[in-house]
């Protein structure tokens, strides 16, 4: 029995849990990208920096709260600061929409013009973030680090391998599940959500039916900002905050959105998990698992690592390319190419 449980626990600890958590973070980010794409019909290159912006505000607020001696006990203080992060991110995105994107909507510019404008906004946000908090790494996790330590798990079960679960990991998954349920309820059940879906499916028809496009756009930005700030804070709590890393998240997030089908919220979630698990599974060194499963004389010398973690971007890229070649609309038949 234990010869099977040990490698299973090992895999759960190093593949299943990190994959789930990273997948949830990517899914939240990709949801924002896919919503903006569905309603505004362009790829928002500023999304990574939007995440960083929301996280930065949250970090600053966390520091302020900590200096006042406020804390949430076992939970990270950042949760208290998060609403302000979300609020300011929403304000920022609404301001950029008013000052930049609305003009291009009025003149009916091509999607590529929107994309370039989003690059301009990405630059400005990036500059602001570096100016305010600096380009360095910040760690803002406090409270209890672990929900269950690997050592306790070993004592509890008597196995050789431990399963450690961090607070931030549980928090990520719980928050992501709640948010996704809320989002789908909103999109499927409320009038505004239905208006958004109608607008995404057929803009002209939606306008004719009396749906106010500006209102739909505004609500899209609000949701995208909220999702971005939350995804950014969860990622930062789980790993750490570094502006450049957030920019680099663009590629896996876009890959997730495209794999699932651009404009399809469900696709973004599935895509996020596909990308996350491919990354984790292909970059994990299976040497220790092999030690449990393979007979003595078959033991390999190497790490049994398929790909070095430095190349994890290559995985998102290859998946993206395969999907573009085989099924450009993505798994859930997103917007036409």
């Amino acid at each position, binding site marked *: 029995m234990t010869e099977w449980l040990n490698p299973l626990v090992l895999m759960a600890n190093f593949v299943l849990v990190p994959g789930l958590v990273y997948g949830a973070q990517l899914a939240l980010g990709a949801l924002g990208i896919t919503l903006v794409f569905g309603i505004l019909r362009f790829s928002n290159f500023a999304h990574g920096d939007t995440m960083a912006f929301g996280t930065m505000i949250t970090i600053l607020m966390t520091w302020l709260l900590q200096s006042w001696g406020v804390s949430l006990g076992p939970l990270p203080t950042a949760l208290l600061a998060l609403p302000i992060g979300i609020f300011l991110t929403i304000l920022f995105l609404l301001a950029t929409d008013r000052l930049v994107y609305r003009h291009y909507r009025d003149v009916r510019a091509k*999607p*590529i013009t929107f994309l370039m404008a989003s*690059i*301009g906004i990405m630059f*400005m946000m990036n500059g602001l973030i570096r100016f*305010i908090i*600096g380009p360095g790494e910040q760690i803002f996790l406090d409270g209890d680090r672990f929900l269950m330590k690997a050592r306790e798990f070993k004592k509890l079960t008597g196995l050789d391998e431990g399963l450690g679960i961090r607070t931030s990991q549980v928090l990520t998954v719980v928050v992501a599940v709640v948010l996704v349920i809320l989002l789908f309820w909103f999109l499927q059940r409320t009038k505004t959500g239905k208006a958004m879906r109608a607008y995404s499916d057929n803009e002209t028809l939606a306008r004719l039916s009396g749906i106010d496009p500006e209102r739909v756009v505004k609500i899209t930005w609000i949701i995208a900002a909220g999702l971005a700030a939350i995804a950014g804070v969860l990622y930062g709590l789980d790993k750490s905050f570094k502006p450049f890393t957030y920019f680099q998240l663009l590629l896996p997030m876009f890959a997730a959105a495209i794999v699932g089908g651009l404009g399809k919220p469900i696709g973004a979630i599935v895509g996020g998990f596909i990308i996350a698990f491919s990354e984790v599974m292909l970059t994990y060194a299976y040497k220790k698992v092999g030690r449990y499963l393979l007979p003595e004389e078959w033991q390999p010398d190497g790490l049994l690592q398929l790909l070095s973690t430095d190349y994890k971007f290559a995985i998102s890229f290859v998946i*993206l390319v395969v999907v*573009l070649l085989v099924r450009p609309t993505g798994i859930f038949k997103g917007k036409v190419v």
Partner: protein
Amino acid sequence: MRAFIAFVIMAALLAAVWHIQSPTVALGMLNLCLISAVMALGVNIQWGYAGLFNVGIMGFAALGGVAAVLVSKAPVAEAWSAGGSQIGLTALCFLGTITATTFAHRKTKGRRGHFLIVMLVAVIGYIATRHFYGPAVDAIESVDPGKTGYLGGLGLPIMVSWIVGGLFAAGAAWLVGQIALGLRADYLAIATLGISEIIVAVLKNEDWLTRGVKNVTGLPRPVPYEVDLQQSAWFREKVEAFAAEKLTSLSGAAREEALAGLITEYSGLFVKLCYAGLFAIVLIVILTLCVLALNSPWGRMIRAIRDNEIAAEAMGKDVKGRHLQIFVLGSAVVGIAGAMLATLDGQFTPGTYQPLRFTFLIWVMVVVGGSGNNLGAVIGGFFIWFLWVEAEPAGTWLINLLTSGMAETNWLRLHLIDNAQHMRVFVMGLVLLLVMRFTPGGILPERVKAR
């Protein structure tokens, strides 16, 4: 006329730097302006002529940089004898795997078990490649890791690498183009973003090829070294003749001292001028070719495709083929600029390839200069590089002025002064958005002949 005024203003700006800051700064800036202009020309070929949105400029520039290393550095004989044969086998296995996988894909397409067979071939190839790769890398990287630890290059003159860099970038562009062209414009953007991240990751981590983040320094130069100049009698004579006025009033030891100082100063300037001359030649050649190409029937066809793909296709133009051609050509120009940059730096540092500096900044140059206009791309390259460099001292000065009311040790003031340099990124975004909104044509808009 507008172009003439723009270039005069640019020259005046550089002259101002020459006088206010120093000639060294001005010439250093000029060199990078020239390289930026070449890069912007490459991007302009893709975006301005054909409307292809390439966000992977960083990767193509880095390929140019690695070409500089692989062409100019002397080969490391011990490394070749230690792991050369195995790395050769690795390469054979790798290419064999790709060929076999493609072959299997073509042969079994549409049949049952297609996916399984292709995967099986790929996995076997992967295992074979890894079998040779591991030991080869270990052997090569253990050869004097402090100094070499890589295979070295071919030991050829570094200027050869400008062409090789272009070829490298062209090859990579051809591969990406096969996949991503013909899809939505956004997809090309995301695909190129991905390929550039991967190229830089490979250059950072494959130490046996590029020394990775240990950097390759001391690339040979196409121009003389300052030290050699300072010791040559020829250069001494020239300086004496050039600075005769300053020296006439002096004599004896004082004159010698002044002369030595002048020689040191002028040798640095002379080297920078040599570089500027070389880069200017490249820029003029590429610019001439670009202007000729854009005004030829081929150029008209490309613009026709850009303005209305469907109509062009209906007229029998091979849209995908032309797009691939344009994409390869533009990337090659970027690769040439990348090799020139590594030549100027005299080193290859994979860690410095940042998308903001190498991809998005070049984009700002093209948009601000005037997409579709070759001279526009050049002036954009000059102007934006100037702004990028000068925004830093200007930002610091502004912050100093704004916070002058605060105490010297005020934490906010110190923080603002520390981070003032990052404001230039913000300024670039602002410039891009303002130009896009209020003068979408850029400084020199594309000329459309109404005939």
